[in-house]
């Protein structure tokens, strides 16, 4: 979609809003095989380093009176732990490392993606779909293992009139299978849209008369993106908790 614009204009006004999402090999120009180290690899590993820095290095002193970074680590821990405990109850606590992994990965990747010229891994469906599928499969398998056939009670709304229940069951079934789709597209879509809009505004900055407006718009969008980076990680995590609750307590 961006290329047509460029070709048509042929002027200084160049829009490549989607180029920031291109996957490139880190070394050389070769084709991208499944094992090739790419910019995806680089930014995923930077996310690992950020998480290690935040949660491991900052807590290495085990201070009773925490330093700033240790406070952030403790805040993140308490935030997710409380969320999981509030939604899933005591049983959910054993999934804490899993939920924390999801949250820390998404939030770090989102914020790393806000660094100019960086690559935003969470803007790719190839990243968010496996995340959402992992949650979906975990919830489905866990639901059947823990509750057996009783897990199907999730689709049988016993509080509704008997005549309505089969129809509701179909709707519930569809909504259950749509979960991973919405779960993954919400995250990638939000992150991608924001980054693309910033790129479009940046393209307008080439025109001298518009550039102050463009810079202001980029600043405003960036602020919004900071918010989105956190909120989307939060939404993904809280939905994971809600789905986990379905598996642990399937009754409506």
């Amino acid at each position, binding site marked *: *979609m*961006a*290329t047509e614009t*460029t070709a048509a204009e042929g002027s200084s006004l*160049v829009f*490549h809003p*989607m*180029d920031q*999402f*291109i*996957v490139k090999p880190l070394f050389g*120009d*070769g*084709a*991208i*095989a*499944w*094992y*090739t*180290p*790419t910019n*995806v*690899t680089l930014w*995923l*590993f930077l*996310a*690992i380093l950020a*998480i*290690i820095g935040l*949660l*491991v290095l900052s*807590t290495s002193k*085990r*201070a*009773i009176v*925490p330093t700033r970074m*240790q406070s952030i*680590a*403790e805040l993140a*821990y*308490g935030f997710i732990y409380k969320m999981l405990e509030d939604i899933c109850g005591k049983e959910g606590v054993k999934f*804490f*490392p*899993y939920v*924390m*992994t999801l949250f*820390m*990965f998404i939030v770090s990747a989102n914020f790393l993606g806000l660094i100019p010229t960086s690559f935003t*891994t969470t*803007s*790719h*469906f*190839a*990243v968010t779909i*496996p*995340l959402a599928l992992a949650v979906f499969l975990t919830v489905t398998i866990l639901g059947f293992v823990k509750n057996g056939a009783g897990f199907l009670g999730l689709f049988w709304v016993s509080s509704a009139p008997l005549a309505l229940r089969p129809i509701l069951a179909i709707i519930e079934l569809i909504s259950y299978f749509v979960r991973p789709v919405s779960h993954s597209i919400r995250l*990638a879509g939000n992150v*991608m849209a924001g980054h693309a809009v910033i790129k479009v505004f940046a393209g307008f900055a080439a025109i001298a008369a518009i550039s102050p407006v463009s810079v202001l718009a980029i600043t405003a969008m960036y602020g919004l993106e900071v918010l989105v980076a956190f909120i989307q990680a939060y939404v993904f995590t809280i939905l994971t908790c809600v789905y986990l609750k379905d598996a642990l307590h399937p009754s409506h």
Partner: protein
Amino acid sequence: MATEPISEEVVGTCVDSHGSAIGMPQLCFDWFPNQIFWLVITLVVIFLVLSRVALPRIAAILAERKGTITNDLAAAEDLKAKAVEAEEAYNKALADARSEAQRIAAEARAEIQSGLDDAIAKADAEIAAKAAESEKAIAEIRAGALESIQVVAKDTAAELVTALGGEADAKAIDSAVDAQTKG
């Protein structure tokens, strides 16, 4: 990246010959295996780091802090109780000292009072004795004075009678003077 030509190998369904994206790079399925492979590695590494190192450590820190706070609160409670105890002891000592002081003062007052009473009684007795003595002296003087008056009056009457050319009758004069002085 937009204009520099890139090798033919890369130019596929996703990137054009200028290195720009064709459509959404998110939908380029050629890249999916690569992204998923590295994502899985990343997630496994993060999971291991969190579950083996970070989360137990943070949990330990939080538990330790909670323990420290509980201990400190208990210690503070202890110290407070001790302070209350010390204050009570102090107040008790203060009250004791005050009553002791009162007792000593009352004793001293009683001692002084008894001494004073003794002295007053002694002085009263002395005064009474002196007054009695004085009264006696006064009575003597008075009696003496009465006798003297009679003697002087008898002598004067005898002299007067003699001067008037009469014969002084001692008995008559005595009786007359007695009658006059008694009246």
